[in-house]
């Protein structure tokens, strides 16, 4: 039988309470979601049950380096999702900008940032998205850019809509943009999602709630930034990203 939102809410709050209790008892903060998170149904058969095996900082470790990207891998228009078709996409035009930093606050330079998102109606330009909201012939929803010397990135796009999914009855995802990031090391690889401030769907979404640490959850939410808004053009959202995981430079410095 299909689960209701109340069923999911109950499981979410039980797991939240257990996390809060552990944290109050001195357990370290969990920056990432647990891979085993029952309220997100698809996780049930897709998480390992054995603990991860630790690989310690041997400088020969292949994963402490990572792939290189360059100007051949992007075109100048790849970061403007509103210019990829002949006409203008429908929706609220936005500028999304921020910096990609490593765990020490150093800019991640010249690395690939990729995004994908639903259109203003909450529909992906993907064959298997059967949400009966209109496709927009002027919007695909895919962008990429290389970070600058200060780790900065900027995208011009439209604000994606919320959309339904089949996790449980009446499940809706808050509006979000999917992000994929590379650091200087493969260990720093990150795929995540950026949310918009004050979305009323936050409490109901088991994917956002899988991040049980409240400050960590807040780090997924962009900030409205009026200085980033462009007159007569777009609303600005700022979102900085911090990559986890060691890199070869940390090891060399004797971290």
């Amino acid at each position, binding site marked *: 039988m299909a689960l209701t939102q109340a069923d999911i809410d109950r499981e979410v709050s039980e797991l939240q309470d257990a996390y809060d209790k552990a944290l109050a008892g001195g357990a370290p903060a969990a920056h990432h979601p647990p891979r085993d998170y029952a309220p997100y149904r698809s996780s049930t058969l897709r998480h390992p049950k054995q603990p991860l095996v630790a690989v310690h900082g041997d400088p020969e470790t292949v994963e402490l380096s*990572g*792939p290189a990207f360059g100007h051949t891998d992007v075109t100048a228009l*790849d970061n403007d999702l509103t210019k990829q078709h002949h006409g203008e996409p429908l929706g609220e035009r936005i500028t999304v900008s921020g910096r990609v930093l490593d*765990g020490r*606050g150093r800019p991640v330079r010249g690395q690939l940032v990729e995004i994908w998102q639903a259109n203003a109606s909450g529909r992906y330009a993907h064959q298997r998205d059967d949400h009966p909201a209109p496709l927009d012939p002027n919007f695909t929803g895919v962008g990429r850019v290389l970070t600058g010397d200060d780790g900065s990135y900027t995208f011009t796009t439209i604000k994606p809509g919320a959309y339904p999914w089949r996790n449980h009855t009446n499940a809706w995802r808050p509006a979000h943009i999917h992000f994929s990031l590379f650091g200087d090391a493969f260990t720093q690889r990150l*795929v995540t*999602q950026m949310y918009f401030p004050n979305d009323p769907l936050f409490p109901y979404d088991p994917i956002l709630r899988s991040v049980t640490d409240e400050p960590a959850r807040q780090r997924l939410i962009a900030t409205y930034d009026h200085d980033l808004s462009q007159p007569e053009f777009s609303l600005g959202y700022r979102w900085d990203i911090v990559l986890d995981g060691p890199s070869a430079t940390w090891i060399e410095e004797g971290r």
Partner: protein
Amino acid sequence: MTEQTTALAPTPSHTVGPFYGYALPFPDGGEIAPVGHPDTITLHGYVYDGAGEPIPDALLEFWQADPSGSLAGKPGSLRRDPVTGGFYGRNGVDFTGFGRVPTDADGHYAVRTLPPGGAPYISVCVFARGLLHHLFTRAYLAEPAGDTLLSGLEPARRETLLARAEADKHRTYRFDIHLQGDKETVFLAFD
């Protein structure tokens, strides 16, 4: 700009979801070896869930040393066409060391690459709908003496990291990934 040295809390991971397929994969994503290179090997296999069912919406990434052992990599994995805004594909000459392929409807993937110099493994990063945080594993093409990771594992667990040469196929290695279950793959943490 002054560089800080204080630790910053990381941005949490989230699942890649079901709809990355029109955004992340790119033509020649699995063709890491330069075109027609005589040393080319094929690494392929299936990705399975805890019920033993193949996963048709996983995304795999591969990172490795070039045949000389260099980990410098090269750009050009997803070369873009500034005229059409589409993809050119790789230039057919450079070895970038990076590959990315989605599993197909059967849960199968394949990449063509060159054997890495140095340590004989290819690093594999697994993303999937339902997987809230990616997983790292390694496809070892050989079992090197004195490898601290392999030597620290029980034989049955070690087995999951070994890509097996297939006798009936030319320079082809089979490497399956089990996210859960009896044959669960060894996944790695780096610190």
